[in-house]
């Protein structure tokens, strides 16, 4: 007998109000377990939500364009086999990260101040949890919207001219202030409380960005035929984050050449063995390994500034992100706990994640929690570049194309395979000398294959 179960949106990495961009099934359709049901789009990636079990769809409960969060009902499914209990359990939220899901309505413990903020932008409230901010940078960015005033809502706010003048002076968006006066009238105290909440939220990149001088507008069509195409969705998202990092972090880039002649020889030697295990052993795998050794020797490079900007958060884990070039744009999959992995495992995961990235199948979780990032353009070319730090990380390693170069050694030039490295670092956290020491250490490590295998 068929059991009707509710299929819910699974844990999607703490994102809320995510858009449903496609509904892939319809009422009455027979589906297999793992059949994609809907496609949702987070700030980082699009992902399919698979069916928890096989069965017949009784009723689809949402449509394209809806916003969903973890636990939202996707559809009613008449499950085929007799494991309804398990099926129903699977999609249930099982948060892995520390709980940052805020209580739905503000609890009595929440200050009256919090009460004054209408819970319209859902990301604003959790942003107040500083510990959660590094893990969820997207949330921290949202209070930026506060700086802008919704004039239509402002013009309807239940507030007298004097209160409106006060709000204008402070730049407070009255449309978002909840009045505590008679019949919900907005009082001066309400405006103050609203502003206080905004001010105590962690600082975000965007307000600074709004103060930047604008790039001049040019009517390109005046100079010849043009064609306008939108940026890809990922580019729109990564663009804002790259700009935030570029504006907020004082970047310095340190360059060095690593002699990987011996490493390359070792890699070629191991390649066949790796291939037997179905692993493509790339130089990047060794670079990941070398980076972990360097990060252990220089823990500041594996740290982040806390919300106050006055403390360093040292991480006792080594999650290495690597920039992956995909048809849709730049994504950064993260190899979790890479220090626990052998070189073959690293190589395998690199291969798998790159494949998923290109296919747009990376899960949100697979792009979170990085502590250091590598951007390798060595497969393409170039001699050096200045990568932008994947904030709130504090450093990023850029890798360019290796080439044979004459190296002066013991009275003569000998050809060596040299790998150009470019290390960008957050100068607030890392001194120049320390960066130089790090990159020299890294280069030396790369020169010593024994340490890496």
């Amino acid at each position: 007998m068929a059991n009707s179960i509710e299929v819910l949106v699974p844990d999607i990495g703490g994102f809320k109000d995510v858009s449903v961009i496609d509904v892939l099934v319809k009422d009455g359709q027979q589906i297999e377990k793992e059949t994609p049901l809907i496609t949702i789009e987070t700030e980082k990636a699009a992902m399919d939500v698979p069916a928890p079990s096989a069965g017949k769809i009784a009723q689809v409960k949402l449509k394209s364009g809806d916003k969903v969060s973890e636990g939202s009902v996707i559809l009613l499914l008449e499950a085929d086999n007799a494991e309804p209990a398990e099926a129903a359990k699977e999609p249930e939220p099982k948060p892995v990260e520390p709980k940052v899901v805020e209580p739905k309505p503000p609890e009595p413990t929440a200050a009256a101040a919090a009460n004054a903020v209408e819970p319209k932008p859902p990301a604003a409230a959790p942003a107040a949890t500083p510990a959660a901010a590094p893990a969820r940078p997207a949330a921290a960015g949202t209070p930026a919207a506060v700086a802008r005033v919704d004039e239509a809502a402002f013009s309807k706010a239940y507030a007298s001219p004097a209160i409106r003048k006060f709000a204008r002076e402070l730049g407070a968006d009255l449309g978002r202030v909840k009045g505590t006066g008679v019949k919900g009238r907005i009082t001066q105290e309400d405006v103050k409380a609203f502003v206080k909440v905004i001010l105590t939220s962690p600082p975000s990149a965007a307000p600074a960005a709004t103060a930047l001088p604008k790039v001049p507008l040019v009517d390109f069509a005046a100079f010849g035929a043009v064609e306008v195409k939108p940026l890809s969705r990922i580019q729109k998202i990564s663009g804002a984050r790259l700009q935030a990092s570029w504006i907020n972090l004082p970047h310095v880039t340190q360059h060095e050449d690593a002699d990987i002649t011996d490493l390359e020889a070792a890699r070629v030697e191991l390649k066949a063995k790796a291939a037997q295990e179905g692993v493509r052993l790339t130089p990047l795998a060794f670079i990941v390994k070398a980076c972990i050794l360097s990060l252990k020797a220089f823990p500041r490079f594996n740290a982040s500034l806390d919300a106050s900007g006055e403390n360093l958060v040292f991480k006792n884990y080594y999650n290495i992100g690597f920039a992956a070039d995909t048809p849709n744009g730049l994504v950064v999959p993260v190899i979790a706990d890479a220090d626990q992995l052998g070189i073959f495992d690293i190589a395998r995961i690199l291969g798998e994640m790159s494949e998923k990235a290109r296919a747009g199948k990376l899960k949100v979780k697979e792009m979170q929690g990085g502590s250091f990032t590598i951007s390798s353009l060595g497969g393409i070319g170039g001699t050096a570049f200045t990568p932008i730090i994947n904030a709130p990380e504090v450093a990023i390693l850029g890798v360019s194309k290796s080439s044979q170069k004459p190296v002066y050694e013991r009275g003569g030039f000998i050809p060596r395979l040299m790998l150009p490295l470019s290390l960008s670092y957050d100068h607030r956290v890392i001194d120049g000398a320390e960066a130089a020491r790090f990159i020299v250490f890294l280069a030396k490590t790369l020169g010593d294959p024994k340490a890496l295998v």
Partner: protein
Amino acid sequence: MSTVEVRVPDMGDAKDVKVVEVLVKKGDKVALEDPLITLESDKASMDVPSSAAGVIASLEVKTGDTVSAGALIAMVETDASVDTGAAKAAPAADVPVREAPASQGLDLVVLGAGPGGYTAAFRAADLGMKVTLIERWPMLGGVCLNVGCIPSKALLHAAKVIDDAADMSAAGITFGAPHIDRDKLRLWKNRVVTKLVGGLSVLAKQRKVDVVRGEAKFVGPNTLEVNGPDGLRRLEFKQCIIAAGSESVRLPGLPDDPRVIDSTGALELPVDCKRLLVIGGGIIGLEMACVYDALGAEVTVVELSDGLMPGTDRDLVRPLQKRIEKRYERILLKTKVAKLAASAAGLLATFDGPDAPEPQMFDRVLVAVGRSANGNAVNAAVAGVAVNARGIIPVDRQMRTNVPNIFAIGDVTGAPMLAHRATHQAKVAAEVAAGHKSSFDARCIPAVAYTDPEIAWVGLTETEAKERGIAFGKGVFPWLASGRSLALNRDEGFTKLLFDKESHRVIGAGIVGTNAGELIAEAGLAVEMGADAADVGLTVHAHPTLSETVAFAAEAFEGTLTDLYIPKR
């Protein structure tokens, strides 16, 4: 012979400036404007010219001293013949104006001394700014005080007295036909204006606002050229508020004849006006029609659209239209003046429209078809300020134009062209110029036609609400049931309040009847405060007053009104 003090002039905000050179010594003979000392601030060096001609009696500064505005430089023994000239020719502010680079320009120049301009100048001065106010006419006050609101209201009062006196015959009080001495009436009206305008000059002096007479045009991003009675003069400014106002639109194709007049001409009360044609059935045209009608002229009003006072709720206009239809010679709607021919006998108007009469002869034609903004008249574009095709300068909520140090306020920023809008914008502009974070944030601006009966409205109109599909509730109280109105011998007025359907807050109001312009203020406050129907209805209004009708309209909406029986729907 007398001895005068020569002091360091106003140097903008420069203080403790170094004397780098003393150019004269005791006993030297100096002419007016001869340089005495050279000062060097962190921005520029400048010579201080002598404000008097004569012989240096004593020198009070030496090289290396630091001085500020007002410091004594020298005593000069003058010969009497140049004394007066010297005093006149050296207004202190001239010195930095002529010599200083842009960064040292005047703090704030306000262009135009109408209600917006003088308000901005005074507010800025009160906030500690050094303000220069430029006006092309000899009198401050602009159109409003000199040839607009104020003189027209004086004449409308006269008209009302005439009409009221005549109306009292119904109550058994009959006066003889009034003897109207137009010259004396004109003088009286002018005295009203002079009293107000004179007051303005005093206010400017008390605030040390420097008033410059002349017609100003921008000649650069920080420079104005003022063509005044004293010749051409350049002013450098740091910030500028354009309050250049508007002027009557002239209709093309009308003869260039002194008998074709605008509102300014109409206020001059030509003595021989027996038959007046008013082109334009808007507020200004109808107000002047009211005056001339009371003074005994035959009035014809011609309006292009299908109703008087286009844009105003029809129900508000109806009582006015009913009254003037009876009194005036003709009201021609959907009609235009196809031709106007001037001859010694008068102005022959040919009409074009469904009810157009035969060509008619008038001895005055008042053109009141609207006003156009003066954005182009001051060459704002030269300073980089955007001016649209209709001469309007667009501004943001802080009254800034697209050029951050140049503001614009009042009629020059477009509709509604009303003095009370200008004065509120003026304060915002002045405050922002002085570094405050002010914004123009009014939710409603009242409009008043001082016709008889008066028509006033504020906030959302019923017409607009219907056009925009806004759900609203309505409370109307006809003055037929107002004891006060009946006692005033009038019964045609009514008070109408519009409410938000859900919150019951007042979102608009329209009033027609005696003193509607005064009564509308309460509705404006209600809109701004977000007062709802109960707030207004439960406020005790004095009885018997016309103001009661506002509360009654709220009660009519609430269903608590007892002065009328309104069956429940």
